[in-house]
Protein backbone atom coordinates (compact mmCIF):
# COMPACT_ATOMS: atom_id res chain seq x y z
CA UNK A 1 0.00 0.00 0.00
CA UNK A 2 1.41 3.41 -0.97
CA UNK A 3 2.22 6.27 1.39
CA UNK A 4 -0.74 8.24 2.76
CA UNK A 5 -3.10 5.75 1.18
CA UNK A 6 -6.03 7.08 3.22
CA UNK A 7 -5.66 10.50 1.65
CA UNK A 8 -5.28 8.94 -1.78
CA UNK A 9 -8.35 6.82 -1.15
CA UNK A 10 -10.47 9.88 -0.37
CA UNK A 11 -9.18 11.47 -3.54
CA UNK A 12 -9.90 8.36 -5.60
CA UNK A 13 -6.22 8.02 -6.40
CA UNK A 14 -5.77 4.38 -5.34
CA UNK A 15 -5.07 1.82 -8.02
CA UNK A 16 -7.72 -0.87 -8.47
CA UNK A 17 -5.61 -3.47 -6.73
CA UNK A 18 -4.90 -1.18 -3.82
CA UNK A 19 -8.57 -0.30 -3.48
CA UNK A 20 -9.58 -3.95 -3.54
CA UNK A 21 -7.01 -4.81 -0.90
CA UNK A 22 -8.08 -1.84 1.25
CA UNK A 23 -11.74 -2.83 1.03
CA UNK A 24 -10.87 -6.29 2.32
CA UNK A 25 -9.03 -4.92 5.35
CA UNK A 26 -10.64 -4.83 8.81
CA UNK A 27 -10.43 -1.09 9.20
CA UNK A 28 -12.16 -0.25 5.88
CA UNK A 29 -15.65 -0.35 7.41
CA UNK A 30 -14.80 2.13 10.17
CA UNK A 31 -13.04 4.51 7.76
CA UNK A 32 -16.08 4.33 5.54
CA UNK A 33 -18.24 5.22 8.54
CA UNK A 34 -16.03 8.14 9.57
CA UNK A 35 -16.01 9.58 6.08
CA UNK A 36 -19.77 9.02 5.78
CA UNK A 37 -20.48 10.81 9.04
CA UNK A 38 -18.10 13.64 8.27
CA UNK A 39 -19.91 14.24 5.00
CA UNK A 40 -22.89 15.48 7.01
CA UNK A 41 -20.80 18.01 8.94
CA UNK A 42 -21.50 21.62 8.26
CA UNK A 43 -19.64 24.74 9.26
CA UNK A 44 -21.48 27.51 11.17
CA UNK A 45 -23.55 29.98 9.21
CA UNK A 46 -21.60 32.74 7.55
CA UNK A 47 -23.49 35.44 5.66
CA UNK A 48 -21.10 36.58 2.96
CA UNK A 49 -23.16 39.60 1.89
CA UNK A 50 -23.51 40.87 5.44
CA UNK A 51 -19.83 40.39 6.08
CA UNK A 52 -18.93 42.23 2.88
CA UNK A 53 -21.21 45.07 3.89
CA UNK A 54 -19.50 45.21 7.28
CA UNK A 55 -16.05 45.31 5.74
CA UNK A 56 -17.11 48.09 3.40
CA UNK A 57 -18.57 50.10 6.27
CA UNK A 58 -15.42 49.67 8.23
CA UNK A 59 -13.43 50.66 5.19
CA UNK A 60 -15.22 53.99 4.90
CA UNK A 61 -14.55 54.61 8.58
CA UNK A 62 -10.80 54.59 8.16
CA UNK A 63 -10.88 55.56 4.53
CA UNK A 64 -7.63 57.28 3.64
CA UNK A 65 -8.92 58.30 0.21
CA UNK A 66 -10.58 61.63 -0.50
CA UNK A 67 -13.77 60.56 -2.27
CA UNK A 68 -16.15 60.55 0.67
CA UNK A 69 -14.72 63.65 2.25
CA UNK A 70 -16.25 66.46 0.19
CA UNK A 71 -19.73 66.57 1.71
CA UNK A 72 -18.08 66.55 5.09
CA UNK A 73 -16.02 69.58 4.09
CA UNK A 74 -19.19 71.44 3.24
CA UNK A 75 -20.62 70.45 6.58
CA UNK A 76 -17.45 71.73 8.23
CA UNK A 77 -17.79 75.06 6.45
CA UNK A 78 -21.34 75.48 7.68
CA UNK A 79 -20.36 74.33 11.15
CA UNK A 80 -17.48 76.82 11.22
CA UNK A 81 -19.74 79.66 10.12
CA UNK A 82 -22.33 78.75 12.73
CA UNK A 83 -19.62 78.54 15.37
CA UNK A 84 -18.28 81.98 14.43
CA UNK A 85 -21.74 83.51 14.57
CA UNK A 86 -22.48 81.86 17.89
CA UNK A 87 -19.18 82.90 19.46
CA UNK A 88 -19.51 86.39 18.03
CA UNK A 89 -23.02 86.86 19.32
CA UNK A 90 -22.00 85.39 22.64
CA UNK A 91 -19.31 88.03 23.07
CA UNK A 92 -21.53 90.76 21.70
CA UNK A 93 -24.34 89.87 24.06
CA UNK A 94 -21.83 89.67 26.86
CA UNK A 95 -20.69 93.22 26.30
CA UNK A 96 -24.26 94.45 26.42
CA UNK A 97 -25.36 95.66 29.78
CA UNK A 98 -28.07 93.87 31.61
CA UNK A 99 -31.20 95.96 31.80
CA UNK A 100 -34.09 95.92 34.21
CA UNK A 101 -37.14 98.12 34.18
CA UNK A 102 -40.22 98.38 36.31
CA UNK A 103 -43.57 99.75 35.19
CA UNK A 104 -46.01 101.79 37.19
CA UNK A 105 -47.24 99.97 40.27
CA UNK A 106 -44.50 97.39 40.04
CA UNK A 107 -41.37 96.64 42.02
CA UNK A 108 -38.64 94.17 41.27
CA UNK A 109 -35.74 92.50 43.02
CA UNK A 110 -32.46 92.22 41.15
CA UNK A 111 -29.62 90.02 42.29
CA UNK A 112 -26.19 91.20 41.20
CA UNK A 113 -23.29 88.88 40.33
CA UNK A 114 -21.66 89.37 43.74
CA UNK A 115 -25.02 88.67 45.44
CA UNK A 116 -25.60 92.29 46.19
CA UNK A 117 -29.31 92.96 46.04
CA UNK A 118 -31.27 95.78 44.49
CA UNK A 119 -34.98 96.34 45.04
CA UNK A 120 -36.35 98.57 42.32
CA UNK A 121 -39.29 100.83 43.00
CA UNK A 122 -41.98 101.53 40.42
CA UNK A 123 -41.17 103.15 37.06
CA UNK A 124 -37.42 102.73 37.35
CA UNK A 125 -34.65 101.65 35.05
CA UNK A 126 -31.44 99.95 36.00
CA UNK A 127 -28.51 98.61 34.06
CA UNK A 128 -25.15 97.09 34.78
CA UNK A 129 -22.50 95.04 33.04
CA UNK A 130 -22.25 91.60 34.58
CA UNK A 131 -19.17 90.79 32.50
CA UNK A 132 -17.12 93.65 33.88
CA UNK A 133 -18.69 93.29 37.32
CA UNK A 134 -15.54 91.80 38.84
CA UNK A 135 -13.54 94.87 37.84
CA UNK A 136 -16.08 97.60 38.29
CA UNK A 137 -19.21 97.45 40.35
CA UNK A 138 -21.26 100.09 38.67
CA UNK A 139 -25.01 100.41 38.30
CA UNK A 140 -26.80 103.05 36.29
CA UNK A 141 -30.09 104.10 37.76
CA UNK A 142 -33.00 106.13 36.60
CA UNK A 143 -35.76 106.10 39.17
CA UNK A 144 -35.61 104.75 42.68
CA UNK A 145 -34.00 101.70 44.15
CA UNK A 146 -32.83 100.33 47.46
CA UNK A 147 -29.37 98.78 47.50
CA UNK A 148 -28.01 96.10 49.77
CA UNK A 149 -24.38 96.00 48.74
CA UNK A 150 -22.18 93.04 49.52
CA UNK A 151 -18.79 93.94 50.93
CA UNK A 152 -16.08 94.27 48.34
CA UNK A 153 -14.70 96.81 45.92
CA UNK A 154 -16.14 100.26 45.46
CA UNK A 155 -19.77 100.09 44.42
CA UNK A 156 -21.09 103.01 42.46
CA UNK A 157 -24.55 104.07 41.42
CA UNK A 158 -24.50 106.49 38.52
CA UNK A 159 -27.48 108.73 37.97
CA UNK A 160 -27.93 111.79 35.80
CA UNK A 161 -27.88 113.96 38.85
CA UNK A 162 -25.10 112.52 40.93
CA UNK A 163 -22.97 109.54 41.71
CA UNK A 164 -23.19 107.43 44.83
CA UNK A 165 -20.21 105.39 45.93
CA UNK A 166 -20.00 102.86 48.72
CA UNK A 167 -18.02 99.89 49.87
CA UNK A 168 -20.67 97.66 51.42
CA UNK A 169 -23.83 98.97 52.86
CA UNK A 170 -27.54 99.48 52.44
CA UNK A 171 -28.87 102.63 50.93
CA UNK A 172 -31.68 104.06 48.85
CA UNK A 173 -31.25 106.21 45.80
CA UNK A 174 -34.11 108.17 44.35
CA UNK A 175 -33.46 109.95 41.12
CA UNK A 176 -36.62 111.53 39.72
CA UNK A 177 -37.25 114.68 37.71
CA UNK A 178 -35.96 117.52 39.86
CA UNK A 179 -35.65 115.25 42.86
CA UNK A 180 -32.56 113.39 44.03
CA UNK A 181 -32.37 111.68 47.35
CA UNK A 182 -29.87 109.26 48.82
CA UNK A 183 -30.58 107.67 52.18
CA UNK A 184 -27.97 105.60 53.92
CA UNK A 185 -29.29 102.86 56.17
CA UNK A 186 -26.05 101.10 56.99
CA UNK A 187 -22.33 101.82 56.58
CA UNK A 188 -21.04 104.91 54.84
CA UNK A 189 -22.15 106.33 51.52
CA UNK A 190 -20.39 108.97 49.54
CA UNK A 191 -22.54 111.13 47.27
CA UNK A 192 -21.02 113.29 44.58
CA UNK A 193 -23.41 115.96 43.46
CA UNK A 194 -22.24 118.63 41.03
CA UNK A 195 -18.60 117.69 41.73
CA UNK A 196 -19.02 118.02 45.49
CA UNK A 197 -18.62 114.96 47.62
CA UNK A 198 -20.78 114.42 50.69
CA UNK A 199 -20.25 111.59 53.15
CA UNK A 200 -23.44 110.08 54.50
CA UNK A 201 -23.10 107.99 57.64
CA UNK A 202 -25.78 105.46 58.51
CA UNK A 203 -29.18 106.97 59.25
CA UNK A 204 -28.78 110.12 57.19
CA UNK A 205 -30.12 111.39 53.91
CA UNK A 206 -28.95 113.65 51.16
CA UNK A 207 -31.68 115.38 49.26
CA UNK A 208 -31.75 117.74 46.31
CA UNK A 209 -35.01 119.33 45.25
CA UNK A 210 -35.05 121.43 42.09
CA UNK A 211 -31.29 121.81 42.21
CA UNK A 212 -31.13 122.93 45.84
CA UNK A 213 -29.57 120.79 48.52
CA UNK A 214 -32.10 120.43 51.28
CA UNK A 215 -31.56 119.34 54.84
CA UNK A 216 -33.38 116.06 54.91
CA UNK A 217 -35.08 114.42 57.83
CA UNK A 218 -33.35 111.38 59.26
CA UNK A 219 -34.87 108.09 58.24
CA UNK A 220 -36.44 106.25 61.16
CA UNK A 221 -36.58 102.78 59.64
CA UNK A 222 -33.84 100.34 58.60
CA UNK A 223 -35.20 100.24 55.07
CA UNK A 224 -37.00 102.69 52.81
CA UNK A 225 -40.73 102.51 53.48
CA UNK A 226 -41.59 101.61 49.88
CA UNK A 227 -39.89 98.28 50.31
CA UNK A 228 -42.75 97.55 52.71
CA UNK A 229 -45.37 98.77 50.24
CA UNK A 230 -45.69 102.26 51.71
CA UNK A 231 -44.43 105.62 50.58
CA UNK A 232 -43.29 107.96 53.31
CA UNK A 233 -42.59 111.66 53.03
CA UNK A 234 -41.19 114.23 55.39
CA UNK A 235 -41.61 117.85 54.31
CA UNK A 236 -41.62 116.99 50.65
CA UNK A 237 -43.27 119.27 48.10
CA UNK A 238 -46.66 117.98 47.10
CA UNK A 239 -45.79 117.58 43.42
CA UNK A 240 -43.22 114.89 44.20
CA UNK A 241 -45.70 113.19 46.49
CA UNK A 242 -48.30 113.15 43.72
CA UNK A 243 -45.71 111.93 41.21
CA UNK A 244 -44.94 109.06 43.51
CA UNK A 245 -48.63 108.30 43.95
CA UNK A 246 -49.01 108.20 40.18
CA UNK A 247 -46.10 105.76 39.93
CA UNK A 248 -47.25 103.48 42.67
CA UNK A 249 -50.91 103.23 41.74
CA UNK A 250 -50.70 103.70 38.00
CA UNK A 251 -53.34 106.42 38.18
CA UNK A 252 -53.04 109.65 36.22
CA UNK A 253 -52.99 112.61 38.58
CA UNK A 254 -54.48 115.97 37.65
CA UNK A 255 -54.63 118.99 39.89
CA UNK A 256 -56.72 122.10 40.01
CA UNK A 257 -56.01 125.24 42.08
CA UNK A 258 -53.43 123.52 44.22
CA UNK A 259 -50.13 124.87 45.48
CA UNK A 260 -47.84 122.02 44.49
CA UNK A 261 -44.86 123.38 46.42
CA UNK A 262 -46.64 122.99 49.72
CA UNK A 263 -44.77 120.42 51.73
CA UNK A 264 -46.33 117.14 52.72
CA UNK A 265 -45.47 114.90 55.60
CA UNK A 266 -47.08 111.52 55.80
CA UNK A 267 -47.36 108.04 54.43
CA UNK A 268 -49.56 106.40 51.85
CA UNK A 269 -50.15 102.80 50.98
CA UNK A 270 -48.75 101.53 47.71
CA UNK A 271 -51.39 98.83 47.44
CA UNK A 272 -54.71 100.33 48.49
CA UNK A 273 -55.52 103.25 46.16
CA UNK A 274 -58.56 104.54 48.12
CA UNK A 275 -56.65 104.50 51.37
CA UNK A 276 -53.70 106.25 49.74
CA UNK A 277 -55.96 108.98 48.33
CA UNK A 278 -57.39 109.56 51.80
CA UNK A 279 -53.88 109.65 53.27
CA UNK A 280 -52.85 112.38 50.88
CA UNK A 281 -55.99 114.47 50.67
CA UNK A 282 -57.04 114.66 54.32
CA UNK A 283 -53.83 116.14 55.84
CA UNK A 284 -53.37 118.49 52.87
CA UNK A 285 -56.99 119.68 53.00
CA UNK A 286 -57.66 118.59 49.46
CA UNK A 287 -60.56 116.94 47.75
CA UNK A 288 -60.29 114.36 45.00
CA UNK A 289 -62.40 112.77 42.35
CA UNK A 290 -61.43 109.31 41.17
CA UNK A 291 -62.71 108.40 37.75
CA UNK A 292 -61.41 105.15 36.39
CA UNK A 293 -57.74 105.61 35.74
CA UNK A 294 -57.68 109.30 36.52
CA UNK A 295 -57.81 111.27 39.73
CA UNK A 296 -58.39 114.98 40.09
CA UNK A 297 -57.17 116.78 43.19
CA UNK A 298 -58.69 120.14 43.88
CA UNK A 299 -58.70 122.62 46.75
CA UNK A 300 -61.47 122.32 49.32
CA UNK A 301 -62.38 125.94 48.97
CA UNK A 302 -62.81 125.73 45.22
CA UNK A 303 -66.35 125.31 43.94
Amino acid at each position, binding site marked *: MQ*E*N*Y*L*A*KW*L*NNELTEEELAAFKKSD*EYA*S*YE*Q*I*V*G*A*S*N*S*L*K*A*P*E*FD*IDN*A*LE*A*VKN*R*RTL*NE*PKVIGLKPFRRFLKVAAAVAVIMIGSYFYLNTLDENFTTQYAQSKEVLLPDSSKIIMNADSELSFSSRKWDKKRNVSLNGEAFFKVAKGKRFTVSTEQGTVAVLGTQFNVENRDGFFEVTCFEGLVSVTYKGKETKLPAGTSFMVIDGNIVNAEKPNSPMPSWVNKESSFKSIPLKYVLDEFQRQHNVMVETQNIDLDKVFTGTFSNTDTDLALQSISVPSHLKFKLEGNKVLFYAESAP
Partner: protein
Amino acid sequence: MNNDTKDNVCNEEVYSELFKANSKTVFNYIYYKYGNEEKAYDAVQEAFARLWENCGKVAPAKAKAYVYTIANNLYLNVLKAEKVRLKYADRVKTTDHETPEYVMEEGEFNKKLDNALNGLPENQRITFLLNRIDGKKYAEIAEMEGVSVKAIEKRMHLALKSLRDKIEGI
Protein backbone atom coordinates in the same frame (compact mmCIF):
# COMPACT_ATOMS: atom_id res chain seq x y z
CA MET B 1 -1.53 53.90 -10.69
CA ASN B 2 -4.81 53.21 -12.39
CA ASN B 3 -7.23 51.90 -9.80
CA ASP B 4 -10.04 51.21 -12.20
CA THR B 5 -8.47 48.40 -14.18
CA LYS B 6 -10.04 44.99 -13.80
CA ASP B 7 -6.84 43.39 -12.59
CA ASN B 8 -6.51 45.61 -9.58
CA VAL B 9 -7.83 44.77 -6.12
CA CYS B 10 -8.73 48.45 -5.63
CA ASN B 11 -11.46 47.95 -8.19
CA GLU B 12 -14.73 47.51 -6.29
CA GLU B 13 -15.89 44.64 -8.48
CA VAL B 14 -12.64 42.74 -8.23
CA TYR B 15 -12.60 43.26 -4.51
CA SER B 16 -16.19 42.08 -4.05
CA GLU B 17 -15.51 39.01 -6.17
CA LEU B 18 -12.47 38.16 -4.08
CA PHE B 19 -14.50 38.58 -0.96
CA LYS B 20 -17.35 36.41 -2.17
CA ALA B 21 -14.97 33.70 -3.32
CA ASN B 22 -12.78 33.53 -0.24
CA SER B 23 -14.41 35.00 2.86
CA LYS B 24 -16.40 31.88 3.74
CA THR B 25 -13.32 29.70 3.55
CA VAL B 26 -11.27 32.14 5.59
CA PHE B 27 -14.04 32.08 8.14
CA ASN B 28 -14.16 28.28 8.24
CA TYR B 29 -10.40 28.00 8.25
CA ILE B 30 -10.05 30.13 11.36
CA TYR B 31 -13.05 28.43 12.89
CA TYR B 32 -11.62 24.92 12.38
CA LYS B 33 -8.38 26.14 13.79
CA TYR B 34 -9.59 27.75 17.00
CA GLY B 35 -13.23 26.75 17.29
CA ASN B 36 -14.24 30.37 17.91
CA GLU B 37 -16.95 31.75 15.63
CA GLU B 38 -16.57 35.35 16.74
CA LYS B 39 -12.83 35.34 16.23
CA ALA B 40 -13.32 33.75 12.84
CA TYR B 41 -15.69 36.54 11.83
CA ASP B 42 -13.28 39.20 13.10
CA ALA B 43 -10.45 37.56 11.21
CA VAL B 44 -12.40 37.83 7.96
CA GLN B 45 -13.11 41.51 8.65
CA GLU B 46 -9.53 42.27 9.56
CA ALA B 47 -7.99 40.36 6.69
CA PHE B 48 -10.20 41.93 4.04
CA ALA B 49 -9.90 45.40 5.52
CA ARG B 50 -6.14 45.08 5.30
CA LEU B 51 -6.45 43.81 1.76
CA TRP B 52 -8.32 47.00 0.87
CA GLU B 53 -5.76 49.19 2.59
CA ASN B 54 -3.03 47.53 0.57
CA CYS B 55 -5.09 46.94 -2.58
CA GLY B 56 -2.54 48.75 -4.70
CA LYS B 57 0.29 46.50 -3.54
CA VAL B 58 -1.41 43.12 -3.74
CA ALA B 59 -2.06 41.56 -7.13
CA PRO B 60 -5.45 39.82 -7.44
CA ALA B 61 -3.70 36.47 -7.90
CA LYS B 62 -1.89 36.94 -4.59
CA ALA B 63 -4.92 38.30 -2.74
CA LYS B 64 -6.14 34.90 -1.58
CA ALA B 65 -2.81 33.94 -0.03
CA TYR B 66 -2.60 37.45 1.42
CA VAL B 67 -5.89 37.25 3.33
CA TYR B 68 -5.03 33.75 4.65
CA THR B 69 -1.71 35.00 5.92
CA ILE B 70 -3.32 37.98 7.65
CA ALA B 71 -6.13 35.88 9.16
CA ASN B 72 -3.71 33.22 10.22
CA ASN B 73 -1.24 35.58 11.86
CA LEU B 74 -3.95 37.51 13.63
CA TYR B 75 -4.37 35.05 16.49
CA LEU B 76 -1.04 33.35 16.23
CA ASN B 77 -0.04 33.82 19.82
CA VAL B 78 -3.35 34.75 21.36
CA LEU B 79 -5.54 31.72 20.94
CA LYS B 80 -3.17 28.82 21.27
CA ALA B 81 -4.16 28.06 24.82
CA GLU B 82 -7.90 27.81 24.27
CA LYS B 83 -9.36 24.37 24.08
CA VAL B 84 -11.13 23.77 20.83
CA ARG B 85 -14.79 22.85 20.95
CA LEU B 86 -16.23 22.94 17.51
CA LYS B 87 -19.94 23.15 16.99
CA TYR B 88 -21.44 22.43 13.66
CA ALA B 89 -24.53 23.70 12.03
CA ASP B 90 -27.36 21.17 11.87
CA ARG B 91 -26.14 18.01 10.29
CA VAL B 92 -27.53 17.22 6.92
CA LYS B 93 -29.70 14.13 7.07
CA THR B 94 -28.52 11.70 4.48
CA THR B 95 -31.43 9.26 4.59
CA ASP B 96 -34.90 9.54 6.00
CA HIS B 97 -35.90 5.90 6.42
CA GLU B 98 -34.08 5.05 9.58
CA THR B 99 -34.83 2.72 12.45
CA PRO B 100 -34.71 4.26 15.93
CA GLU B 101 -31.71 2.06 16.74
CA TYR B 102 -29.91 3.39 13.76
CA VAL B 103 -30.71 6.98 14.71
CA MET B 104 -29.38 6.36 18.19
CA GLU B 105 -26.25 4.67 16.97
CA GLU B 106 -25.70 7.42 14.51
CA GLY B 107 -26.05 9.99 17.30
CA GLU B 108 -23.53 8.13 19.42
CA PHE B 109 -21.15 7.87 16.55
CA ASN B 110 -21.45 11.56 15.69
CA LYS B 111 -20.67 12.48 19.28
CA LYS B 112 -17.57 10.32 19.21
CA LEU B 113 -16.55 11.84 15.90
CA ASP B 114 -16.97 15.37 17.28
CA ASN B 115 -14.81 14.57 20.27
CA ALA B 116 -12.20 12.96 18.11
CA LEU B 117 -12.15 15.99 15.82
CA ASN B 118 -11.74 18.34 18.76
CA GLY B 119 -8.79 16.29 19.92
CA LEU B 120 -6.99 16.33 16.57
CA PRO B 121 -3.86 18.42 16.13
CA GLU B 122 -4.81 21.79 14.67
CA ASN B 123 -3.27 21.29 11.21
CA GLN B 124 -4.84 17.84 10.75
CA ARG B 125 -8.26 19.11 11.77
CA ILE B 126 -8.04 22.06 9.37
CA THR B 127 -7.02 19.85 6.51
CA PHE B 128 -9.67 17.23 7.23
CA LEU B 129 -12.54 19.69 7.63
CA LEU B 130 -11.58 21.92 4.72
CA ASN B 131 -11.59 18.83 2.58
CA ARG B 132 -14.74 17.20 3.95
CA ILE B 133 -16.92 20.27 4.62
CA ASP B 134 -15.67 22.79 2.12
CA GLY B 135 -14.67 20.29 -0.51
CA LYS B 136 -11.27 21.88 -0.91
CA LYS B 137 -8.73 19.99 -2.97
CA TYR B 138 -5.42 19.05 -1.33
CA ALA B 139 -3.67 21.51 -3.63
CA GLU B 140 -5.89 24.37 -2.47
CA ILE B 141 -5.34 23.53 1.18
CA ALA B 142 -1.62 23.32 0.52
CA GLU B 143 -1.72 26.82 -0.95
CA MET B 144 -3.60 28.18 2.06
CA GLU B 145 -1.28 26.59 4.53
CA GLY B 146 1.80 27.37 2.50
CA VAL B 147 3.02 23.76 2.48
CA SER B 148 3.39 21.04 -0.16
CA VAL B 149 0.50 18.88 -1.41
CA LYS B 150 2.34 15.88 -0.02
CA ALA B 151 2.35 17.40 3.44
CA ILE B 152 -1.41 17.90 3.19
CA GLU B 153 -1.86 14.28 2.11
CA LYS B 154 0.14 13.24 5.10
CA ARG B 155 -2.01 15.33 7.41
CA MET B 156 -5.15 13.90 5.85
CA HIS B 157 -3.89 10.37 6.24
CA LEU B 158 -2.91 10.94 9.87
CA ALA B 159 -6.18 12.70 10.58
CA LEU B 160 -8.24 9.74 9.38
CA LYS B 161 -6.01 7.33 11.22
CA SER B 162 -6.21 9.10 14.56
CA LEU B 163 -9.97 9.68 14.16
CA ARG B 164 -10.43 5.94 13.77
CA ASP B 165 -8.11 5.24 16.69
CA LYS B 166 -10.03 7.59 18.92
CA ILE B 167 -13.49 6.43 17.87
CA GLU B 168 -12.63 2.75 18.18
CA GLY B 169 -10.93 3.46 21.47
CA ILE B 170 -7.63 1.97 20.40
